[in-house]
């Protein structure tokens, strides 16, 4: 399983990356894309939307099923990946390159509650 060590993860299979400017990029993990199968539709939050940690904020639909995406941390959405919306299969091809949205954290300390790659690998093994 491919879980980059520089990322933090959630139990609900999102990955997060803290950028140099303090914003946080969010996507779904390789395990999640594998479980969903061919992804054909993304519904992403609009820039400006305020999210609470754990809030449903996006939907990834594969041929097989729809899957809710939860905000890993609270904050304001500052960008959504239109390129991934236009080509949802890129999430299958590289789930860590095809990010979904970026958040400006309201409380960066929430990042400390996320899982590291090793802890996430255990979660993914159980599902």
């Amino acid at each position, binding site marked *: 399983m491919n879980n980059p060590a520089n990322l933090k993860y959630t139990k609900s299979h999102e990955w997060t990356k803290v950028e140099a400017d303090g914003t946080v990029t969010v996507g779904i993990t390789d395990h999640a894309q594998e479980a969903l*199968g*061919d992804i*054909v*539709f993304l*519904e992403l939050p609009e820039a400006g939307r305020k999210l609470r940690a754990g809030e449903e904020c996006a*939907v990834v*639909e594969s*041929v*097989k099923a*729809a899957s809710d995406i939860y905000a890993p941390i609270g904050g304001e959405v500052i960008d959504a990946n239109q390129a991934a919306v236009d080509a949802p299969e890129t999430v299958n091809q590289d789930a860590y390159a095809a990010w979904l949205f970026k958040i400006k954290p309201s409380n960066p300390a929430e990042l400390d509650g996320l899982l590291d790659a090793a802890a996430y690998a255990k979660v993914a093994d159980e599902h």
Partner: protein
Amino acid sequence: MGKHTPLHEAHVGAGAKMVDFAGWDMPIHYGSQIEEHHVVRRDAGMFDVSHMRAVDVQGCDAQPWLRHLIANDVAKLSLPGKALYSCLLKEDGGVIDDLIVYFFSPNRYRIVVNAGTADKDIAWMNRQLPGYNVAVTPRPELAMIAVQGPNARAKFWAAFPESKAASEGLIAFQAAEWRDWLIARTGYTGEDGFEITLPAAEAPAAWDSLKAAGVAPCGLGARDTLRLEAGMNLYGQDMDESVCPLEAGLAWTIDMKSAGRDFIGRKALEAWKTSRQFLGLLLLDKGVLRSHQHVLTKHGVGDTTSGTFSPTLQRSIALARLPLGVRIGDEVEVEIRDKRLRARVVKPNFVRNGKPLIQEN
């Protein structure tokens, strides 16, 4: 752990993602469901459908018994090997299962039923036996492989050249016995091809031979998107024991012509007041239709029964039970999560033989 078909090792060895389907461990895909869909529309793919159950019906009353048992009329089968599709109904008209019945002679038929309903169907059939000289024999020792696509027959013959003489003259919905195999020109994809029934012990070698002839293994995921594009019903989703076949697009499978034929469910169907019709939906907005979504029309609310993303049309499609009064071409709204998305009502028949049947816009 679920039940295994004779091809289980072949699936696992090929890296298939296995899922539970009606108590069986079955491959949902071998990598990409969409690629498997396209290979069937464009070339040739194969499905392990050994979880489905063949049931032999033999005896001097086989024909009158089947004319009582099922809603379609086997009396119209006279060409050896010819088959028809039918519902198995309860007295109240609810659908116990849908099936294919093959005719060999008036005292010998074979039925193929769904995996999830096989035990229930066989128990029901056994209850209908008194008074008829008929033996019902389930054949769980048989495997089934569906080879489907525009090049399916040619590739099947490349793998089994000795079978060509027996099978090249088959018309649609006709089968031929060859050695101890049954080769049927039937399918569940909207493409040409064969469904092969053969002894379980021969299935792995047959699968390998077909693969060597260029037939791609395909999972149940692609089977579902293919059948939905072809507008074919899935038991348990588009109809079940609570649904009248007249409201599931299956009126064409119910043969009322012979007035004296007293098939199970006939009285209920004759008295049935239809309030809903079975139609297709093409999603105009972006998103994916799924089963059990509300469809808002100016004649009332309907429901989707099956929905998916159509790899051929690159749009989402659905089968739906809609109020009477809704017409083909109408624009309706489907509730998806907190949104209402626009869809167009179309004939429930989206793709056949590789070609879209509906206009996109």
